């Protein structure tokens, strides 16, 4: 497969999920969520979600329980640092 089909003459892309490739491949350490410690999971209601707020790649879903999209998580570990319940660890 050749690249001329994209018809670009300079670097060009449209903002879309996956436009920069599967950035999860960059990861060396993986975040692991411990739902038994996570505040929204324990309280079964909307609360905290600091991991969602601070994730620079917006790959944490504000659901109960929260979900981490490992296809795009680069493994920066910011969620581990901001979690007040120490519910996320890097493995």
């Amino acid at each position: 497969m050749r690249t001329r089909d994209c018809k670009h003459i300079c670097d060009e892309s449209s903002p879309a999920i996956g436009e920069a490739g599967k950035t999860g491949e960059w990861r060396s350490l993986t975040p692991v969520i411990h739902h038994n410690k996570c505040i929204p999971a324990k309280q079964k209601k909307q609360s905290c979600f600091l991991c969602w707020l601070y994730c620079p790649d917006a790959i944490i879903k504000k659901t109960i329980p929260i979900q981490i999209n490992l296809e795009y998580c680069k493994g920066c570990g910011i969620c581990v640092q901001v979690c007040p319940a120490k519910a996320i660890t890097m493995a």
Partner: protein
Amino acid sequence: MPKTRRASASLTKKANKANIRLLDGNQAAAEGAKLSRVQVIAAYPITPQTPVTEALSEFAERGDLKAEYVAVESEHSAMAVCTSASMVGARTFTATSAHGLAYMHEMLHWAAGARLPVVLACVNRAIGAPWNVLNDQQDSISQRDTGWIQIYARNNQEILDSIIQAYKIAESVYVPVMVCFDGYVLSHTEMPVDVPSQEDVDRFLPPYKPHTILDPANPKNYNLVTLADPRANADGVLCHGYMELRYLLQEALQNSAETIIKVGQEFGELFGRNYANMFWKDNLDDADIVIVAMGSLAMEAKVAMGMLREDGLKVGVLGLRMFRPFPKAALVKALEKARLIVVFDKNISYGSEGATSSEIKSALYGSQIKAAVRNFIVGLGGRDIKARELADAVRKSLPSLKTGALNIEYPEWICYI
């Protein structure tokens, strides 16, 4: 300069009749930009380019030119403004010299890499240390590898004409164009210049169509981090990696000769001054000795040619107009009969030789031409170079005519050492 300017203008029935004005090179550049209806000008004054910026800011302030004049704090910013404005669809212009051009270096790469058709007038000046504000071509030659097309004008008419053509070339092939002309020799010397009418230039030069369309309804990313390998976008289309984009820039410059010649021919048909050539030839038909020079130096070489012809030598002049792309194949054809090629350079690639000399030798490699190439470095930092000095250098090179191809490792200098 075309000999039949007045006559040829009357031959092109469609174009308005000649409007001859006395202009210096800087005024000619400013008029060229104005006639091209530039929309954004960002420039920082530097000797000897300053009058270009003064004239354009006056045009914009008076309302003669519907353009935004952005008074920037540096040349780096000037080129940043030009690339950004070009990106959103404005026809942009800037002018600079020497240290200003050097300061722009990073953004020159950016304009070419982003394939933005910015046009820059470079008023050629020497670079320090030591300080020197006078003419040579070291500044633009030092920007040789930035991916810009480079045109060198021989006189003020060519400056004006080349800027108008530069937009048509740049906006066809999406490569920025640098129109270079010698400081003082041209920039501060008045000559008769036929200034075309706005109506005629409008017919020649269509409005700019950007390839980068910025539309909030259809957002795009341009020139983000592009790593070594190609990768598929979200739609699964394999997109160029960094190296493919570099290849496309080289391909665009390689193919641009065709556009340059076509645009030059179209210009000739409308205005009576034909530019359908990458270089100018004078008396090459019977010449076994060819002088090669670039910019105003080529005009000086024509005077030297006259002197040498009086001595009975068969001398011709080849004046390079295009330095990038470099017209290798066309040159080999033009130099077919040459046995001695004397190249004068107003620049030096330290540790090697003059830039045009290297190019000529590279063009000749593998061809049938067995000519000696002699290189002379002249006129650095405004050192006056007289026609008789050029003629003397050719006379000094004559033994090479008999001995055939000579490999002279380093150039000779016409100076007092």
